[in-house]
């Protein structure tokens, strides 16, 4: 019954089952957030990460949107754990499109995801200082 909907691939169904990574982290040292999208346009995301030793030790999402978008956000939290700021800056939505078999009509929503990821990099703790 649930497995026959050709619109949603296996990864979307797996992700939607638990929405692993949903939620947020209490504010505190090393905690960084980024927001992107617009609910009125159909997709909005809030990412919250905790940076330890210049890497994402934890990442959570909250999202509004279609199953592909929610699933991609969930998938992302697993993918980016351990990533450093440069990885976030270079993150590309195409990886999510492939992993989640997102139809082209919805690529725009993945750009919203990418905006949020790059927003995390921008808001990276100490990003204002030059800490190379």
């Amino acid at each position: 019954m649930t497995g026959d909907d050709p619109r949603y691939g296996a990864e979307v169904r797996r992700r939607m089952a638990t929405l692993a990574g949903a939620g947020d982290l209490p504010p505190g040292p090393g905690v960084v957030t980024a927001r992107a999208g617009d609910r009125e346009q159909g997709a909005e995301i809030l990412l919250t990460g905790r940076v330890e030793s210049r890497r994402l030790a934890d990442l959570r999402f909250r999202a509004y949107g279609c199953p592909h978008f929610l699933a991609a956000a969930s998938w992302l939290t697993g993918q980016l754990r351990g990533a450093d700021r440069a990885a976030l800056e270079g993150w590309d939505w195409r990886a999510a499109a492939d992993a989640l078999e997102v139809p082209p009509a919805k690529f725009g929503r993945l750009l919203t995801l990418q905006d949020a990821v790059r927003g995390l990099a921008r808001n990276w703790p100490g990003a204002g200082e030059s800490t190379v």
Partner: protein
Amino acid sequence: MEDVVYLDNAATTAVDPRVAEAMLECLGAHGDYANPSATSHAPGRRARARVEQARAEVAGVVGARPEQIVWTSGATEADNLALLGAARYHRPRGRHVVTSRTEHPAVLDACRQLEREGFEVTYLKPAEDGLVEAPQVEAALRPDTILVSLMHVNNEIGVVQDVGAVGRLCRDRAVLFHVDAAQGAGKLPLDVERDCIDLLALTAHKLHGPKGVGALCVRREPRLGLVPLLHGGGQERGLRSGTLATHQVVGMGAAFRIAAASMAEESARIAGLRDRLWEGLRRLPGTLLNGHPMRRAPGILSISFDDVDGESLLYELRGFAVSSGSACATTNAEPSYVLRALGRSDRLAQGSLRLSLGRYSTVGDVDAAVAAVGAAIARLRAVAPPRSPA
């Protein structure tokens, strides 16, 4: 389908076993499978007798005489035959047609075709409750208006138009009146005489009859001219050529007969289920009923949920067969034009759900749906970002 709770009876219904049995009697080598036009032999006459019995059964439900019934392949064809057929025939009298924005695509797209043929169509905007009242129709009439088309029960939101009032107005003004009764006939009382209806589109499959058969009920006195859509064998007094599908027509007759016999009782039961559904769902925050709260058909409930993505809501409800709009529109992702016409925002329209009940719907189905919708909405709202940036 045991694994899915079916709440999409406005899209189509399961065929009643009594209907299926009557159909089966017209299929196999030992049944009445002959061509009902082949009245020169006994099997053909038996098939013809069945067709005529079904004609009387369907006519009886809408207060018509059997000879007013023209069999079609469904309400889409009946609507097209009514609109295109009447407008093309009566074109010399005028080229103006009046309808509403919330009609079924079978009416709206036929009207667009009429526009391509040089007609002018006024699309009335219903009030926020989905109703188009007679004075509004009256204001739209012009000296060259030849036809008014208004649906009985709206397929998306279930509101019931006062077709009798509009019918009497049209009769007074000598304007033809067509009613698309695909969703209401056999469920609510309807009478072509009393309601002054010149053309009435019917279909079997919303009433536990088979898909692919319907009828246009045509006024005969005085005779109403129509240009046919299909030309050929001259069946149905030349108005609709093509071999009559005995089993389909017989299935429609049985479905209408059964529905008429239990109409009051069944409507009350189904309206009770619908009310239970609404009572359960209205408690959820941000829930809005679409359409007039009282003037509604028993089986259809349309709700908009604020702040929930419609596609994800449907995904969460995948154990239920429900619709986010008219069945005919489910393949495109456009927000429902019906809900938009009622003034709902795109996002509200997109986050809307139609749950529609039928003969086989149970209290258990309703309670399961209330629980599932509640859980889905709670889950989706819990995962959404807070409204004001944290």
